[in-house]
């Protein structure tokens, strides 16, 4: 049985379009799923529409090194009960990804060098520091994002500190030290040495970029795709002005040469 015009073998039965749908990545910062569910519940209690019932990708990068296998079946059921769906996983160790696939979850392609979003990972943001409910509810309007004013930071961002520019760009005028973390939903500019981590397009904007006047970062990320630098930044760009952008699924670095 079918509706509409009768199908012939050459009437197209589907078409493929690149939709660039807004997709949240729900990053697991701990492999302790009991804690994860508890905090997520608390968060949803404050902002029930946070994900607007859209499917989310489960980010595993931060727990890849721990290599613990979350109970994906249980987690999917937990999410479903709350009207949410896990579309698939992004990042994670090979074993974790295999386990997710075995439970019927999709595998989002992994950025190169994404294996190690880890060890010195920042402490999970305590619930108290999460954005006030009202703002959070407004967030899923990712389809028609309301731009916030640029957040400008003029003091050093030090080890253990996180600066988050929600809904907009982040400009830092002072040093960002190793172990510090910058997060922006838009672009990130650093007009001093960038030695910590910088995560632009944190809500999935693949066109976000990072601009650093003196590039020495430990990790950069665009829209959830990570690049770590175990052996430091390539010598040709180390400590130089650099921009970071997403090329397909690859995070790429480019010297910032003046264009005439």
């Amino acid at each position, binding site marked *: 049985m079918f509706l509409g015009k009768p199908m012939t073998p050459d009437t197209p039965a589907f078409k493929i379009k690149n939709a660039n749908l807004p997709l949240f990545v729900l990053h697991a910062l701990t492999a302790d799923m009991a804690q994860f569910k508890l905090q997520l519940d608390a968060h949803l209690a404050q902002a029930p529409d946070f994900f607007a019932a859209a499917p989310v990708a489960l980010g595993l990068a931060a727990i890849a090194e721990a290599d613990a296998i979350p109970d994906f079946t249980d987690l999917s059921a937990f999410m479903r009960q709350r009207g949410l769906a896990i579309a698939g996983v992004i990042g994670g160790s090979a074993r974790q990804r295999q386990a997710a696939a075995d439970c019927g979850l999709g595998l989002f392609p992994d950025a190169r060098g994404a294996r190690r979003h880890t060890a010195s990972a920042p402490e999970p943001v305590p619930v108290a520091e999460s954005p006030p409910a009202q703002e959070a509810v407004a967030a899923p309007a990712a389809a028609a994002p309301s731009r916030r004013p640029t957040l400008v930071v003029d003091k*050093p*961002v*030090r*080890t*253990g*500190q996180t600066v988050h520019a929600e809904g907009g760009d982040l400009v830092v005028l002072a040093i960002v030290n*190793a172990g510090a973390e910058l997060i922006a939903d838009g672009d990130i500019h650093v007009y001093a040495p960038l030695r910590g981590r910088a995560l632009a397009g944190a809500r999935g904007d693949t066109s976000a970029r990072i601009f650093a006047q003196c590039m020495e970062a430990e990790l950069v990320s665009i829209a959830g795709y990570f690049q770590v630098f175990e052996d430091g930044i390539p010598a040709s760009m180390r400590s130089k002005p650099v921009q970071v952008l997403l090329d397909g699924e690859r995070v790429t670095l480019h010297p910032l040469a003046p264009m005439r």
Partner: protein
Amino acid sequence: MAKVIVVTSGKGGVGKTTTSASFASGLALRGNKTVVIDFDVGLRNLDLIMGCERRVVFDIINVINGDAALSRALIKDKHCDNLYVLPASQTRDKDALSLEGVGRIIDELKETFDYIVCDSPAGIEHGAFSAMYFADEALVVTNPEVSSVRDSDRILGILAAKSKRAVDGQDPVKEHLLVTRYNPGRVAAGEMLSVEDIQEILRIPLLGVIPESESVLQASNSGTPAIHLDKSDVAEAYKDVVARFMGDGVPMRFITAEKMGLFKRLFGGR
């Protein structure tokens, strides 16, 4: 107006207590009424370094709990006038160090003293937090190694975000870098970070450099703050630090390796 100065570092064993004892003594030697408080509850050792461990009756927790008046817990230093020690408790639990209680003690001390020096425990837990919370200024004690610099950076971040001054939106805590256990020879050999390397990362003004010296151990074993060791380079360095803190323009010393004479090279230094 009394000033509260925290001696802090994040990392353990870098020389906070050694510095607290010598810095407080130096301030007192220059005629300032000074008190030094040990916040290392459970591991007190400021009293050992100051040589007053046998005179401890009451401690900071007794005062917070109302078991003893503040004046009864203060111990007068045996080396200089104007200096008092408020010891930590060896037996109590750190959590007894309530912010509210510490605030009361500091307010009361401000009525009598010019400088209140707080010797912080290592780490970034409760004890370290209560030592820094009320600070007006901070001596960030750093050894020339990466892990120590990293921890100092962390502490600076906490000072800037969570100290009372930050929380109340007052002027920020004034930060001073104090590099201790500095060995210019090993720096020259590339085995340790240089003062410039450290400053490049932390980006706060340098108050002084204390050389690595065996005399520090002798001093602490004999219960005498290192600043009293006549003619030692450590004592000189700490005196310079106090002078700079009080606003004197004293040039930096002990940052370059002295040339080793042939004799020293053949028979070893020291």
